[in-house]
């Protein structure tokens, strides 16, 4: 009588568990396909010239030097500007604000900015920087990346400061240290690895960002370190080259893609190691 019901339930169980194994396989297969193809095409196009020569005109040979330098410059400025701002705002949320209404609002807005479309960030900087300056520029690109860095740093800073045991704060306060000194000398120091993780994640995030650079930094085919003018960046060059019909450009795009992915993934792995060493 019940045997049929048992068989049916067991069958369902087997079916759905198999499906969830397949789901995991589905995810892993795409990862393998993407990374495999990226390595295959990327490594075959990798050479020293990438780091010594400028982006070529169509049909010519060349490298990616100006794009790499442009990306490094804009990312460096964005991190240098975004980290202190994010650190301070995160500190406010975890230390001074915590349960205030302002902190609640900032947290809400920050989490929206964290996942908001990055192309909208580009439009925002276009409106407030590019139209005011009258031309595309490296500064505008750096500003757009800064806007992306800040929420990442705010979120991780707050989370990491909240992990610092209150006993540490109280002990420092009992010694008579003012609150600002407690924060700087004790809580920040205790959460140092975690805050650094946030900065690394922010760098990983902006190294692959293309959309906010499309109409802020634009592109520059030549060697330029002038932040007042359009400047090349690795993601933009990949986009531009990949959309073209030129075989040589395609190869350079793959090589650039490999460089970016290697950077981003190694940064996230380092961040993960830092985080887990902190936890244990």
């Amino acid at each position, binding site marked *: 009588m019940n045997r049929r019901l048992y068989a049916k*339930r*067991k069958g*369902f*169980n087997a079916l759905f*568990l198999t499906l*969830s*194994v*397949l*789901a*995991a396989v589905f*995810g*892993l297969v*795409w990862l393998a396909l*993407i*990374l495999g193809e*990226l390595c295959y*095409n990327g490594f075959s196009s990798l050479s020293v010239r990438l780091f010594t020569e400028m982006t070529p005109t169509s049909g010519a040979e060349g490298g990616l030097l100006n794009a790499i330098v442009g990306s490094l410059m804009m990312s460096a400025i964005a991190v240098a500007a975004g980290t202190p*701002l*994010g650190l*301070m*705002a995160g500190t*406010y949320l975890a*230390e*001074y604000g915590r349960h205030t209404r*302002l902190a609640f*609002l900032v947290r809400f*807005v*920050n989490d*929206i*900015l964290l*996942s*908001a*479309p*990055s*192309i*909208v960030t580009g439009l*925002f900087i276009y*409106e*407030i920087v590019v139209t005011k300056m009258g031309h*595309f520029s490296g500064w505008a690109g750096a500003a757009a990346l800064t806007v992306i860095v*800040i929420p990442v740093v*705010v979120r991780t800073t707050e989370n990491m400061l909240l992990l610092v045991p209150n006993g540490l704060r109280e002990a420092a306060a009992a010694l008579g240290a*003012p609150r*600002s*000194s407690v*924060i700087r000398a004790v809580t920040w120091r205790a959460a140092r690895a975690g805050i650094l993780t946030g900065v690394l994640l922010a760098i990983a995030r902006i190294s*692959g*960002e*293309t959309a906010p650079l499309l*109409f802020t930094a634009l592109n520059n085919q030549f060697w330029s370190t002038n932040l007042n003018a359009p400047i090349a960046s690795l*993601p933009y060059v*990949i*986009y531009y080259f*990949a959309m073209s019909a030129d075989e040589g450009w*395609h190869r350079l795009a*793959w090589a650039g893609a490999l460089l*970016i*992915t290697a950077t981003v*993934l190694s940064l*996230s792995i380092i961040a993960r190691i830092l985080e887990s060493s902190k936890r244990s």
Partner: protein
Amino acid sequence: MNDIALTENLVAAGRAHVVRRFGMKDARFHGLTAAAALLVIAIFGGVIVSLIIGALPAIRQFGFSFLYSEAWNPVTEKFGALASIYGTLITSALAMIIAVPVGIGIAIFLTEICPRPLRRPIGIAIELLAGIPSIIYGIWGLFVFAPAFQTTLQPWLIRLASDIPFLRNVLAGPPYGIGIFTASLILSIMILPFISAVTRDVFETVPPMLKEAAYGLGCTTWEVMWRVVLPFARSGVVGGAMLALGRALGETMAVTFVIGNAHHIQSSIFAPGTTISATIANEFSEAVGDLYISSLIEMGLILFFITFVVLAAAQLMLRALERRAGGLS
């Protein structure tokens, strides 16, 4: 005697001075952090205000018709966002249809089936999918996936669907490789880790007693997951899915590469289309004329509005969950 009193006075004065200095230092630091926090709100407000100002010419010119007109003609300066809005919604919806069940499946696999030593490495591998920059998905989709799809699976699917009513229209057309479906599939791979990570985390907050009680009644693993764990974790799963949806709606580069950039609404999901972000990415830097640029900015405003609603809903759900988890522990 006098000397001692004098010293005490001096010490007290010195102490008061130090305390005052500390107080000032404190106030200054407090002010600085609060200013940085206000800056976050200022950026958010700045985005909205600058987009509205930028969009004003287009709003004045087209009014509400911008939302339901399919016209997109830079030459005659007639603009409507319907095709882009439709593309954004349909690609995100298709991506969710694929990614939600698969993401939950992965979470079930990671919490129930996977051998313990493999849990961490497989979990990290799935999360790596979220770490790959979107432009990599784009270039891979354009050069590897689309050509392979075009020559193998797609013609077969089109032939298969050609005799079935309704499906005939949805899976129609010449196999381009690129198009709405390809964009959706790539989007689904990109948002998969968001769904599976959040889902796995909420699954782990389910009290083991609940599961054990269900097992004790003789439930199969699947019944425990479907009837006990999922209902318990529902708001977290929905929150994670909304977060992923927010990503999918705003995703730019991966979609721009493979969607085909066509301003038409077609019934076939194999047809090329466009999304709000793809249109902006493709056309903004080459747009001439204030009305053209303003129309693109208005599209950005619409996109920001849609993602804001979705992300705000996601946050409220996940916050409520956090409070509950905090109450339990």
